[in-house]
């Protein structure tokens, strides 16, 4: 039982990364019908921007010029990095996707892949092949709850990501921009007929997705403080699978599928040798898709893409 709960805690943390990255994928996918294959790398960029901001703030704090407590630095890092990374997302949208809005979707997917490679390479050129270590902003405290070990970091990570997911949900449900996004996911061709600028909504979608990826990147840096330029690849593709699995146009679906991904991975490794993890995890996904061909909450979309 202790064993199970320990893994449950582990899975919650692990799944929250997938869920947050999957949300970014899912939003772009729902609204623009595009695979933004660069999203995994935006997660990486977010983590590095977070690293840069945090390192800078720590240095500033150490110099005594502006003495900040660790948690304060973390909050500032998250906010600043979200802001900065959202620009990365908007640039990616402007350069890589907007010119291709009417092109075959596969072309945009290729552009995304290529932008991803450029982001990785750009990072390598800027920072070199050396791994960097994310500064420890909060002292790790381990609690022993009846044999189950929980750290303050884990609790923080799960809570912060859940609250961002909730915030996103409220944004999409309650604001007019969120409404426009939902409308666009349903039928983006008619959206401009109501006086809604599609480009603004697309840009906003990329910005929000990227900002979330930045949060995921920073929380990842807190949990696994070793960053490398290729960290976005595996993560990105798995989150991508989760996003599609969740179903088009469903934030709830992407979140759940992201957590499911994390749970499958952790629990498969709990029962089987960990080398079988991918094999079993993807077999499960394949089966789910064979029996639920449109994901969890997705509607079989009719390709009503032209007016």
């Amino acid at each position, binding site marked *: 039982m202790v064993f199970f709960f320990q893994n449950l805690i582990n899975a919650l943390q692990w799944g929250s990364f997938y869920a947050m990255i999957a949300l970014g994928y899912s939003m772009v996918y729902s609204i623009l019908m595009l695979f933004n294959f660069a999203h995994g790398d935006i997660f990486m960029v977010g983590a590095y921007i977070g690293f840069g901001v945090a390192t800078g703030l720590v240095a500033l704090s150490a110099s005594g010029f502006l003495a900040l407590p660790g948690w304060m630095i973390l909050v500032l890092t998250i906010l600043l990095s979200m802001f900065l990374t959202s620009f990365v997302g908007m640039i990616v949208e402007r350069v890589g996707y907007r010119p291709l809005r009417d092109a075959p979707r596969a072309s945009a997917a290729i552009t995304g892949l290529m932008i991803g490679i450029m982001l990785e390479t750009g990072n390598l050129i800027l920072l070199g092949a050396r791994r960097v270590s994310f500064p420890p902003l909060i002292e790790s405290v381990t609690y022993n709850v009846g044999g189950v070990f929980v750290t303050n970091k884990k609790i923080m990570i799960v809570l912060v990501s859940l609250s961002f997911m909730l915030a996103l949900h409220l944004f999409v449900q309650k604001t007019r921009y969120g*409404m426009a996004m939902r409308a666009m996911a349903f*039928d983006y061709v008619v959206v*401009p007929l*109501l006086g*809604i600028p599609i480009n603004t909504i697309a840009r906003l979608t990329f910005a929000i997705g990227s900002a979330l990826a930045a949060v995921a990147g920073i929380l990842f840096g807190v949990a696994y403080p070793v960053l490398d330029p290729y960290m976005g690849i595996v993560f990105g593709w798995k989150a991508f699978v989760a996003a599609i699995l969740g179903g088009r146009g469903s934030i709830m679906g992407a979140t759940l599928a992201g957590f499911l991904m994390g749970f499958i991975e952790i629990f498969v490794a709990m029962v089987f040798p960990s080398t079988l993890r991918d094999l079993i995890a993807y077999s499960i996904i394949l089966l789910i898709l064979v029996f639920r061909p449109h994901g969890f909450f997705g509607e079989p979309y009719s390709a009503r893409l032209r007016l």
Partner: protein
Amino acid sequence: MLLSIQDLRVSYGRIKALHGLDFEIADGEIVCIIGANGAGKSTTLRAISRMVPVEDGTRMTFMGQDLLKLPPEKVVSQLGISHVPEGRRLFGNLTVLENLQLAAFARKDKDAINRDLKRVLTIFPRLEERLIQKAGTLSGGEQQMLAIGRAFISGRRLMLLDEPSMGLAPLLMLSVFDALREINAEGATILLVEQNARLALQFSQRGYVLENGEMVLQGDAKKLLDDPAVKTAYLGG
């Protein structure tokens, strides 16, 4: 003239859809374009709302402003030209209220929006009962009402209506057209495209007949109703 169009040409790839239309609409008019399937009626509306690119040489002005300089969303938000597309195209995953609120996306004046919202609900009382229902669950007539209401809020100096009668029972059809007349009476100009030529001509003041991408006839709606050529081709003899 509210809207004046000269030499409107549109092609889809190598297929020419419109071969140079000229027409005008005055403020406050109800004008209809009738024609067979594939004559280019919907394309004409799409060209006005800038949803399809037009070819060089086309001139479109709205109250003296060059339409071609504006992106589609500005045509709605700046000029007040709204477009009810073929098949309604409501956001089925949004509620009725959300669909209406969304139509006010580009508008700032909260009071005016609320007034318009109330007005829509008085014109179409049935929508009021369904405000928090998903638009996808509405019946065909209600969907058409919502589509018109949405257009009413987003802009109504000129309303472009694509087949408003499609798929509606005769009685509903009439009530939709009554509502449109009411909206027109409040100052909205209406350009509608119809397969149901008789209904359209009875409803309009002027009419155009479109055949294979060319305007073949135009004039007073009542006269067109009596035109023998129109009669045989569009009114079932």
